[in-house]
């Protein structure tokens, strides 16, 4: 067993510990690669744990099955689901993304490997503690769910574990920062490659988020420890959402960085405009953290002006940035493929793309579904007044399953597949099953998210409860009109879980039993014509981008339509507010 595991971390390196990746052509140092694998594998383990709880949660919300009653620990299950997936699966992956975006892209070793390992250790300890304190919750205390809102009686140890995990993540991110500093020292005037630049912005935003998180959980910690007597629910919420939403910005930025990376390596994308893409990243740096306020749209005590300015990321600076990437990434693909002569017409570049490559398919579905489902719903529910109709309903759950559970998770699944092929150098145990993952997951989770949104908006079904649709205890009122939609949603969530299990099967199976990749396996991953065909960078702007433009116009039409519909629905309400 141990031998199998250590073998996973081996590759053929030269005397200096470097090797050249036969797919990306990158010069990879052992130190960086080993740690990417370490964090990536840990992430997959967290995903398995969280995924098991996706089953119990989804089968409870499907009230026909009604797996776990409210008093039989439903909220414990929901807490396990949220923390293992949203926090542990994502953040472990993000550290891996930083190490790819920094040292590996820059062709450096990972500095401070001891610090990286210590960071990993602290993160693991924190994650175990959080799991332990959720699972062993006793009668008197309350489950934290994702948010651990005070003054619920959430165990002290839980807050301690959460703080530990965040500290660990900060420690683990340090070697990345040092590698960027080293690079800049050696070549002050040089420009970072776009992927490294994206990773760097991700890092800065991550640090801001983590500091907020440490503040929030420490505030709750000293209150639970009895050091302060009272705690203010509103202040905790403001602090909490710096990490609660901030971690979603980390997810977003890491995912966008992965999009640029994977569309390039497996699709042949180029950078349509360095200036535009980098400006969009810079806009994130300034504006995206303001967006955390959109969780506070219907809170008392905050002025309307404050809420409107912040929820809009200062006049939609960050939403604008996202719409820039929404054009730039497909446009890079279109331009790169057109330059190679791959596919003419409006969409030939897209239809001729390697749709049978699970890495490519994961990336593209991630981009499309994140934008259409996650992005649009996010802006809608982030408008102060519309938020009244979305807040804490099932529609919210639909929104963030479209973003993190669908968009980001698919991108990261693609990245895991890519790492299995190129770093672990294993073939999939079954190419068919591997290909099933992006198609099956995108379809099932896409439909599930959409249904959740409908159920929330049109029937007002709340989130975070085990039973309200068929029966509200002690009341004749129920939300049973929503039952038919659950008949589709239930099976879809089940399907998504099954495909998630297939992903784990393929990933773990290939690591343990996949054949070694050969040179030709590596070549097969690359876009036709290789990674770097001829063509000057001066001419990218002159390549046709009408396919992307058309797609973006379709996106905008959907956006406008849904915007108008949502506002129409809102104005049907009775009058509310001063």
């Amino acid at each position, binding site marked *: 067993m141990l031998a199998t595991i250590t073998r996973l971390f081996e590759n053929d390196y030269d005397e200096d510990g470097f090797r050249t990746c036969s797919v990306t052509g990158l010069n990879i140092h052992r130190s960086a690669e080993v740690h990417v694998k370490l964090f990536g594998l840990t992430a997959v383990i967290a995903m398995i744990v969280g995924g098991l709880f996706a089953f119990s949660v989804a089968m409870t919300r499907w009230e026909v099955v009604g797996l776990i009653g409210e008093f039989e620990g439903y909220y414990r299950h929901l807490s396990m689901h949220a923390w293992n997936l949203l926090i542990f699966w994502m953040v472990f992956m993000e550290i891996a993304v930083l190490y790819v975006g920094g040292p590996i892209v820059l062709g450096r070793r990972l500095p401070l490997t001891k610090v990286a390992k210590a960071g990993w250790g602290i993160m693991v300890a924190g994650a175990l503690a959080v799991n332990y304190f959720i699972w062993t919750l006793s009668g008197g205390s309350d489950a934290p769910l994702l948010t651990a809102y005070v003054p619920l009686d959430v165990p002290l140890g839980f807050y301690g574990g959460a703080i530990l995990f965040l500290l660990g993540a900060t420690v683990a991110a340090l070697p990345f920062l040092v590698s960027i500093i080293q690079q800049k020292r050696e070549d002050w005037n040089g420009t970072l490659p776009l992927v490294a630049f994206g990773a760097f912005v991700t890092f800065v935003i991550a640090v801001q988020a983590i500091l907020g998180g440490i503040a929030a959980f420490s505030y709750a910690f000293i209150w639970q420890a009895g050091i302060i007597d009272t705690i203010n629910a509103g202040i905790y919420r403001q602090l909490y959402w710096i990490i609660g939403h901030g971690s979603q910005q980390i997810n977003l930025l890491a995912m966008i960085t992965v999009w640029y990376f994977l569309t390039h390596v497996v699709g042949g994308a*180029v950078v349509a405009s360095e200036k535009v893409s980098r400006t969009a990243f810079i806009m994130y740096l300034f504006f995206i953290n303001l967006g955390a306020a959109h969780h506070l749209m219907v809170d008392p005590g905050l002025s*309307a002006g404050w809420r409107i300015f912040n929820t809009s990321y200062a006049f939609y600076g960050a939403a604008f940035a996202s719409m820039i990437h929404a054009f730039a990434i497909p446009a890079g693909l279109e331009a790169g493929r057109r330059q190679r002569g791959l596919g003419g017409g409006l969409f030939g570049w897209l239809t001729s793309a390697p749709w049978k490559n699970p890495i490519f398919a994961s990336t593209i579905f991630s981009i499309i579904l994140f934008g259409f489902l996650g992005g649009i719903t996010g802006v809608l529910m982030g408008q102060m007044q519309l938020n009244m109709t979305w807040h804490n309903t099932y529609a919210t759950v639909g929104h963030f399953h479209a973003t993190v559970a669908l968009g980001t998770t698919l991108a990261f699944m693609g990245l895991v597949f890519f790492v299995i092929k190129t770093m672990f150098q294993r073939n999939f145990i079954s190419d068919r099953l591997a290909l099933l993952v992006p198609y099956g997951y995108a379809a099932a989770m896409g439909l599930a998210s959409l249904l959740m949104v409908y159920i929330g908006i049109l029937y007002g079904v709340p989130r975070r409860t085990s039973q309200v649709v068929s029966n509200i205890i002690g009341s004749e009122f129920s939300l049973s009109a929503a039952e038919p939609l659950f008949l589709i949603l239930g099976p879809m969530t089940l399907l998504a879980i099954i495909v998630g299990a297939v992903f784990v099967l393929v990933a773990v199976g290939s690591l343990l039993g996949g054949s070694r990749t050969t040179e030709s396996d590596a070549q097969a991953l690359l876009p036709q014509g290789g990674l770097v065909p001829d063509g000057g960078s001066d001419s990218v702007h002159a390549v046709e981008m009408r396919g992307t433009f058309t797609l973006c116009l379709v996106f905008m039409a959907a956006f406008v339509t849904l915007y108008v519909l949502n506002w129409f629905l809102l*104005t049907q309400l009775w009058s509310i507010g001063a």
Partner: protein
Amino acid sequence: MTSPLDPPDGNWWDRAVNRRETIWLGIAGAWSLGIFAWMSGFTRFGDQNPIGETYDVEPEAYAATVDTYEENAETTSTAAIEESRAPTEEERQDVLVPPSKSVYVFPRRFSWGGLPVVLEAGTEYDIHLSSADVQHGFSVRPEESLSQQINLQVFPGTEWVVPMSFDEPGTYQVICNEFCGQGHASMHGTFYVVDPAEYETVTGE
């Protein structure tokens, strides 16, 4: 060929941007400003805004206010409201008739204090929201039209006064949509909104 894995060469900042990309920047930028303007304008001309005065108030002090309010309130009954008739003396207990235009809602685990209450359609009331213990979610919808629902967060220690005027008579159901502990799913309450012509009858005034 520009790759996201290599440093861009030459003067990349001054390189031309594709014409369609430029147009898209214009569209996306205009839309961003447009939806900002709409959201902020709606606070001036719109009728649905989650805006109201807030005050710091200890749960005990708020509880005392609610006590006084309830003492001053008349009561009527669900049956009377449903049958559009005056309540009998024995019936009068389960539904509050607010003594003024201030209506107090006081959630605690796991019930809605202050509810049920009977209101007059088309009249503006000040709905006071504050919690006795943990955070709760004030989630309201008319029984017959589930898609017309709104949600507001309720804190302990803060009193939020949100004016509302229910235009349509009907039964408005309240549930809690913020997790407040085991038992949370059973929290429910009711606003009975009646036609002004019937209000005096059903409240027995």
